[in-house]
Structures are given as C-alpha cells and as structure tokens.
C-alpha cells in the first residue's frame, strides 16, 4: 500500500513504521511484534476515519489517483472475454474511448469506456482519456451495434472532459457529443453507466445517459473541472477546493441529492489499493442492475429513461 496524497500523511507515517518493523522479519522481538500489530490496527482505524469524511477536494485527488483502476483494468477483472473494436468508420480510431463486446457473467454485453492509460507512453496513446469527436462516433457505432443484437450497454466513465483542441472543433466536438446524447436517449437496450474516477462534464455525459447511473464511492461528477469552475466563478483557480465543495461533485453528495442510483463501495483507502476488490464490487452492482433492467419491456424501459431525464432540474415561479 502506498499512501501518497497530501491528506494521507499520517497514514504514510504509520505505513513507514510498519514497513521498518516488517523488514526485521524473523528477528522481530516479541514486544516489537505486538507493536507491529498495534500499528496495523491503527493504520486501519485512521484510514477508515479519514476516508469516512473526505472533503470534496480530497475526493477529487482520490478520483484522479494515478494508480486507480482504469476502464481496461475493470474490463480485464470483470469480464470473461473481451474483443476490442476499433474505429468510427469515418475518420479514425480514438484511443481515449475503448470498447467492444464482452462476456460478462456469462452474457454478451457491449462495454464502452474512457481509458486514461497508465504511464507516459500509454497516456499519450490514450490522450489521457480525453476523447476527440471520433471517440464519440465510435461509441455511437458500438451502441447501435449493441441495439441491433440486443446486448445491454455498460459504459465506464473516467475523463477530465472531451479534448478542447482546434482540430476537435474542426471535426465537430459539439456535434459528436450531442449525437451521442441523442443516440443514448432512444437506444432500445438497457444502459448502465458507472463513473469509475472522473466524470468530467459534457465529455463524460456523452457516454452516461443511462437507465442506471452508478458511481464508485470516491469518484466525482462535475459540470466543469473544479479548477475551471473556480476561474469562472471567482476568477482564480486557487479556489478549486471551494468550487469542488460548492458544486457537490463527490459521489456521496450526488447520491444524497438523488442524482445517482447507487454508490459502489471501494476498498479501504480507495480503489487504487485493491483493484481486484474494486472490480468485484462494481461487478456485483452491475449484475444486480442488469438483472432488474432485463425484466423491463423495452418500450417501458425507454419511456422510463425519458421520464428520468425529463424530471431533472428544480425551478420555481416568481410571485
């Protein structure tokens, strides 16, 4: 385990002490052995305590942790089989979104997700999980294919946002996202979206219009990155932590507001401490929701999806 975030300093300290005792191995004296167990209990207790009440900004840091499991990790850990499909059949293949048919709990589903990539080379290859328009066109292609064969769609969401480049404007980033929202609004198969890390704005929403929206416990979903929001509202991104707090972007807050359907528990200290357990938890939740959704006739399903989005957004009337 590595506790490397700012607010985890006390945990890192304990971890260091534990490691130095463990290094002694056989030579550990009896009282040192007791001390080691004491430290381990303490680490567990402090970790639980800190993670029980993470601030919004701390949650942002966990959601962006470099060792967090990404889409490819989840696919690998949750599915018996996966065949990656490439290309939007128009311009190219965007590696920021990966997807294809997968055997999930014995059934074929279509999995689509943002992939950030780990390490320099992969990050460049996947453009850090920030899609170009081709990525959304590929996602639409895969969703329509899923509809044709009656496969449920599972989307794993993890992006800072759609890529804001000039070439993206040339190739219609806005149109591509709008087209994806449109396709998902009327797709005639069950759709489940799960935010596994960062749900960054329109670039995330574009693959998360769904019958069920799940979020991992320490993931976030934002209308704009907290840094961006801070510079818009208060003209300075040093206020990002305040913006994160005010916009209520953590999974827990969104769950409390009734905007998401399930909070998927993460392993102690965050998903990056135990990819396998994180994937098991997500898989359990996905299976549960898939089973429920499969019971619903498709006309009813699409109708319910419409009603769910139609109802979002409170307003009042001036007297």
């Amino acid at each position, binding site marked *: 385990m590595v506790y490397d975030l700012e607010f985890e300093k006390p945990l890192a300290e304990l971890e260091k002490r534990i490691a130095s005792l463990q290094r002694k191995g056989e030579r550990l004296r009896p009282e040192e052995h007791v001390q080691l167990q004491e430290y381990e209990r303490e680490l567990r207790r402090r970790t639980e305590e800190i993670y029980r009440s993470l601030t919004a900004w701390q949650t942002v840091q966990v959601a962006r942790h470099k060792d967090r499991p990404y889409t490819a990790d989840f696919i690998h850990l949750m599915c018996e089989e996966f065949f990656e499909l490439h290309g939007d059949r128009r311009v190219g293949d965007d590696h920021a979104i990966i997807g294809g048919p997968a055997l999930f709990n014995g059934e074929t589903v279509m999995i689509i997700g943002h992939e950030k990539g780990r390490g320099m080379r992969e990050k460049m290859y996947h453009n850090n999980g920030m899609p170009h328009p081709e990525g959304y066109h590929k996602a639409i292609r895969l969703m329509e294919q899923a509809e044709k064969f009656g496969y449920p769609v599972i989307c794993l969401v993890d992006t800072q946002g759609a890529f804001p480049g000039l070439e993206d404007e040339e190739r*219609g980033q806005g149109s591509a996202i709008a087209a994806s929202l449109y396709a998902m609004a009327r797709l005639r198969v069950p759709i489940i979206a799960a935010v596994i890390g960062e749900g960054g704005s*329109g670039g995330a929403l574009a693959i998360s219009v769904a019958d069920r929206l799940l979020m991992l416990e320490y993931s976030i979903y934002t209308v704009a990155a907290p840094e*961006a929001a801070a510079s818009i509202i208060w003209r300075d991104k040093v206020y990002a932590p305040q913006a994160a707090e005010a916009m209520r972007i953590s999974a827990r807050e969104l769950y409390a507001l009734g905007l998401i359907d399930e909070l998927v528990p993460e392993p102690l200290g965050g998903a990056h401490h135990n990819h396998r357990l994180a994937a098991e938890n997500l898989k359990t939740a996905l299976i549960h929701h898939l089973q429920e959704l499969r019971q619903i006739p498709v006309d009813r399903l699409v109708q319910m999806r419409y009603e769910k989005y139609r109802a*979002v957004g409170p307003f*009042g009337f001036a007297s």
Partner: protein
Amino acid sequence: MAKEAAGSSGGPQPEQRSGPGVAPDNLMVKCPKCKEILYSRDWEKNLKVCSRCNYHFRLTAHERVNLLLDPGSFVELDAAMVSVDPLNFVSRSQSYAEKLQEERAKVGLNEGAIRGYGTIEGLPLSLAVMDFRFIGGSMGSVVGEKVTRAIELGLERRWPVLVVSTSGGARMQEGFYSLLQMAKTVAALARLSEAHIPYFSLITDPTTGGVTASFAMLGDVILAEPGALIAFAGPRVIEQFMHVKLPEGTVNSEFVLQHGMIDAVVHRRELRATLARLLRLYKVPEAARAQQPASATAQSQVEVATLLPRQSSQSRAEVGGGQDGLRS
C-alpha cells in the same frame, strides 16, 4: 460546461465586457470590431449590424423575437419561471440567490431564456430564445426546462420548433443539474424527431460549451448569424490547452459552416425570410399519419395508386422496380 474539460473554461464571465460597444451617450455606438462610430438611429435601423464591417451586435431575447416573428404574434409562456438554488451553493462572496436577484434586476428578465409561440409570415411555431446578458447565457435548470417545454409544445400542437442559442456554457452554480439539462433537452428532441416535427436551430454570438454540445447542434436545419463565435471549447480554452494563439475569429460561423457542422450563415436582415421559407418547406405532417403507421400506409397507398397512372412507365421503372418498389 463550458468547457470543459480541462483546465479551464470558457465560461460566462470572461465574455461579459461592459455592455459591448455601447458608448456613454446614447446617440452613438462604437463597433467593437472595426471601431467605427455609428449613429444609434442608423444602427438600430440596420438591425444593430455595423454598416461598415457587418459586425452583428448581440441582441437581447426580446429584440430577437421582435426581429423574427410577425409583429404582435408572440405569446410568452413561463415568464415567471425562476431558478432555485438546488445545491444551496456556498459562495465566497455573493450567494447564488443574491446573484440571481441582481441579474434579474439588471437584465429585466427572470432567467437566461424566454419561451413561447408565435408566427412567422403567418406560420405558427414554438420557440425558445436565449439571452446572453443573464449570467453569460449560462444554462441552468430553468433554461433547460424552457427549451424542453418549447419542444414539448411543438409536439403537442404539431408546430415546428425554433431554438435561438447564445451561451457561455453550463451554469456552474447548479452543478450536475446544469449538466443534465443537456441530456434532458436532447431527449425531448429525440421525441420531436420521432413525431416527424422539424426543429430549427439558430446559433448566435457567442455559443459555446454544453449548449453547443446539445440542442444547438441537433437542428434538422442549423443556421448561424455571420461572425458568431461557435465552439465547444471557447478560443481561450483552446489557446490555454494547446499553448497556441488563435487568430481572431478562428472558430466562428464561417468556420463551422466550412467544416460541415451547420447548414447556412444568414445575415440578420435575411433571417426572418429564411425561416419563413423553411417553415413553408418543412410542413409538419398530419398527426394521424405520423402517429398511426397502419392507417398512414393505407392512405399513402391510395395516393400512390391515384398517382401512378399519370406517370410514364419509364419514370416508374426509374423509381425502382415500379409499383412494387414504391410500395415497399
């Protein structure tokens, strides 16, 4: 939403300069683009377009309605609809509730969009029009709701729908609720589409972020005024992210037209006539036909039957296999 992404954002505030181009005395205005001093009266007669460089000044929502609709035909609906503060948004200085109050007083509108119905050259339509002055034309729940209701009225009355966009992106102070307005409006558009009712999108300066990535770019016909900034990420976001300097006007109406994202760039003077032409061309099919496929088929077969004898056998063949081809 402004976009996004990353680091920063093209959100509303940076756009709000002090009342674009209006000089202190009301007799003259200065064109922000070519700096020409224009007589207010001429300028207004010219629909607030610079007579020298063709710069289209921004219009308020009501000015837009007056420009486009038949005089006196507009009936506004939901004018009293206001934003609530769903997140109880904690602000460093002014609260969101105070901000809303201030904007209402300043702009004279309850929110950043108006909606209702009216006619253009006698043809009815349902419409929603955004107003950039209200918190940078940002889309919160009320803007999303008004656009959605405009679409729903079109569905109910079987009228074409027009949305006039101008927006700096999503309303930060309503967080995830704002983002979800993109999905809400688009879901309503999908229904409109399934009912075979046309939707026209008119994009005006500036339109960026979540509005660009939802209803603005989904028109059956998409029009834009000349020189309007139209982008998903605003130019400042692109510059910051790509570490480049974009020449003025890189991402505008002409740019998106050239790249195939919209159908036409239309001078303000021509907008009303253009919309009237579209309303005449895109006639809404009768409900019975669109909604009841069975009887519609029967009816169209009758039409085909009466039509066919008048066509030459050659032209029938060209249509693809004669009668059978038409029927299938």
